[in-house]
């Protein structure tokens, strides 16, 4: 079996959620099938500037073909078009222009996919909202399997994505909430789909003392791992934690791992250690009492899975359906919506408290049952088998004509997404 993994960026040093997800899947499937990665030369997800050379290379035993991005993103133009399609009635042409503007615009990549369609059994497209996934999936619709990595943001409500969600052969969802969202916006319940998620590269041994010694961390602490950004809920986290630190002078410290886009408050109980190696990250997780995930938008939190894999409880933003759903289903942590809940939950999850170890243990069990690599690989292989056995659907949705594409009849995408029932899938 030959599988093509198509993703917007690819590299051993790229730690973005969907990209890392794609790399893990490619590397693990490569033991069961021939895998090739088709991607762009971009490294920066904001500008999509070509930074890697076009052509073929091998990364960790996987063949990677890079194609240049024809036009870097103009952030002002993208912002203007986003406002237009998210908040106003618009046309399909407006949506296509938005997709072009979002990027990474790489016609060469799409053309290559069309050329090699017969060389692969299936094409795995990661991140439905980007140019490469939409155009690529339409080029090889009968062999396309989509890994949407969709969050509850307005982009999912654009009408152009509906035809792709309904037209691909299969979908590999990250969570039940993501599946419910995509079913809600596109009505693609008849398309084969399975909730898979992704595993992680969990080390066999972690050494908490090494982290404490290396970074001179002596007190018990809660940890945040990821980009320190307002979009990730870090501003609220800082606000809540500063209040918590004032209310509980002997409570936990907060350690932050990741690049800071947002200024980190100067406080003796907040330590920002910047971007650290994977070894340090896992050692830090092992040393922490609890992982905090304040992000309001997530399609799957890999770092939460990693925390569970190490038997650590998590404290997540209860307003994020996916995080809350995962936490409740796993019984591996608590969630908060207000400061009071944040403080009470943090207290409950401290290592000295009664709950942390129990919830962490349940999280580990959940991880082993649902997110260990054998389970993930089996789900992918089962999907390939199923799609190989089932014939592809012949009928394809007709694409609107020139005039229809220019009629401003599409509702604002935000309105479409808001119309889909929200909330975690608890059981």
């Amino acid at each position, binding site marked *: 079996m030959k599988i093509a993994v198509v993703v917007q960026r690819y590299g051993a040093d790229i730690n973005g959620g969907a990209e890392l997800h794609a790399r893990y899947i490619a590397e693990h499937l490569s033991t069961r099938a021939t895998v090739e990665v088709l991607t762009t030369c971009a490294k920066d997800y904001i500008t999509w500037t070509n930074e890697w050379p076009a052509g073929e290379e091998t990364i960790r035993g996987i063949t990677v073909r890079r194609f240049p991005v024809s036009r870097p993103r103009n952030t002002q133009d993208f912002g203007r078009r986003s406002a237009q399609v998210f908040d106003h009635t618009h046309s399909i042409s407006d949506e296509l222009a938005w997709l072009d503007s979002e990027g990474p615009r790489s016609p060469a990549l799409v053309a290559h996919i069309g050329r090699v369609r017969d060389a692969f059994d299936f094409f795995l497209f990661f991140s439905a909202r980007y140019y490469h996934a939409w155009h690529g999936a339409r080029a090889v619709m009968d062999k396309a399997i989509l890994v949407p990595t969709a969050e509850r943001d307005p982009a999912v409500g654009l009408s152009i994505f509906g035809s792709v969600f309904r037209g691909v052969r299969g979908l590999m969802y990250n969570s039940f909430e993501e599946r419910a969202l995509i079913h809600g916006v596109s009505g693609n319940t008849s398309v084969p789909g399975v909730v898979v998620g992704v595993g992680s590269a969990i080390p066999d041994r972690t050494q908490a003392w090494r982290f404490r010694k290396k970074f001179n961390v002596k007190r018990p602490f809660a940890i945040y791992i990821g980009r320190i950004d307002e979009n990730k809920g870090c501003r609220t986290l800082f606000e809540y934690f500063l209040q918590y630190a004032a209310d509980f002078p002997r409570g936990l410290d907060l350690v932050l791992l990741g690049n800071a886009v947002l200024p980190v408050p100067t406080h003796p109980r907040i330590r920002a250690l910047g971007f650290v190696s994977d070894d340090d990250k896992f050692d830090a997780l092992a040393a922490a009492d609890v992982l905090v995930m304040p992000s309001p938008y997530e399609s799957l939190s890999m770092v939460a899975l990693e925390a569970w894999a190490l038997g650590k409880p998590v404290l997540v933003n209860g307003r994020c359906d996916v995080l809350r759903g995962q936490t*409740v289903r796993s*019984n591996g942590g*608590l*969630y908060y919506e207000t400061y009071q*809940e944040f403080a*009470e939950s943090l207290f*409950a999850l401290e290592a000295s*408290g009664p709950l942390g170890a*129990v919830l962490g243990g349940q999280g580990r069990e959940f991880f082993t049952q649902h997110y260990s690599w054998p389970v993930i690989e089996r789900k992918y292989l089962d999907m390939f088998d199923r799609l190989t056995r089932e014939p592809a659907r012949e009928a394809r949705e007709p694409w609107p004509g020139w005039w229809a594409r220019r009629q401003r009849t599409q509702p604002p995408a935000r309105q479409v997404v808001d119309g889909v029932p929200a909330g975690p899938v608890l059981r």
Partner: protein
Amino acid sequence: MSDFQVKADAVDVEAIMRQIRARVREKRGVDYTEAEVQELAQVKLEQFLDPKGLRSDLVGQFRRRRGVSPAPPNYAFEDSTIYETHRGLLRAMRRLLNPLLKLFFNPDRISEALHVQARVNDVSHQRLRALEEMDSLYYELVHNLALEVTRLGIEVHNMKMRVESLSSRMDFDERRGRALESVVQYRQPRQTAPRPAPSVPPIATAAPAAVPAETMAVAGDAGDQGTPADRTASADGERRRRRRRRRRRPGQTLADQSAAAPETAGTDTDAETADFVAEGGPDTGSDTQDSGPDKQ
């Protein structure tokens, strides 16, 4: 913070969250989420601004108007502006005929007025810009005020409810206290003192069986008569009174006590006798339950 109820190895996150929320509710009074507070803030603002049912969308208006408005059209007006033209010959002729024009009216005044107007327009535009900048501040201010007022309103509401709850509890406690006072009974004396003989004076005879020993002793003192059993009871009562007096004056030394003993003892005995009589011991019978040290 109190501990959680962890009953087994397997715990239910939803159950824990219910406990946490219950505790938060206990502390805060009402469990509003931030979204609910925001919603309440909007609703209250609208109600405040729209008492007559008129459309009120101040917040929305503010948000829409937060952008900077485009500059209004203006012109630069100089003395020579009214003679300007791209045709050189025409410009020369206008200048040539200017004295003739001035025979009919004074164009300098018009030029001056328009020049001033252009400057006024500039100043007005600058002020408008400044006001627009202030608008965003006002928006933030009004928004934050509305939010805070709503929070305070909710808090005041909670406080009122708490005060009501506390006052109702206090009323209940008072009523309970009174009820207990009205049903209190004396404990039966432990020593098996025989019932008073018929020869006992009327004041002692009239005392009910439940009258305590000291009361009986008082009666004995008052009458200075009685059986040997009465006298024993009387002596016992006297000892108890002495002990009570010692307890009542913790600050006194032994010498003080012994110095003051005869007078005090007499006074106390008299006072107790007076109390007893005043509270109707011999006359009203069962009413003696209201007094005495052995209240139950």
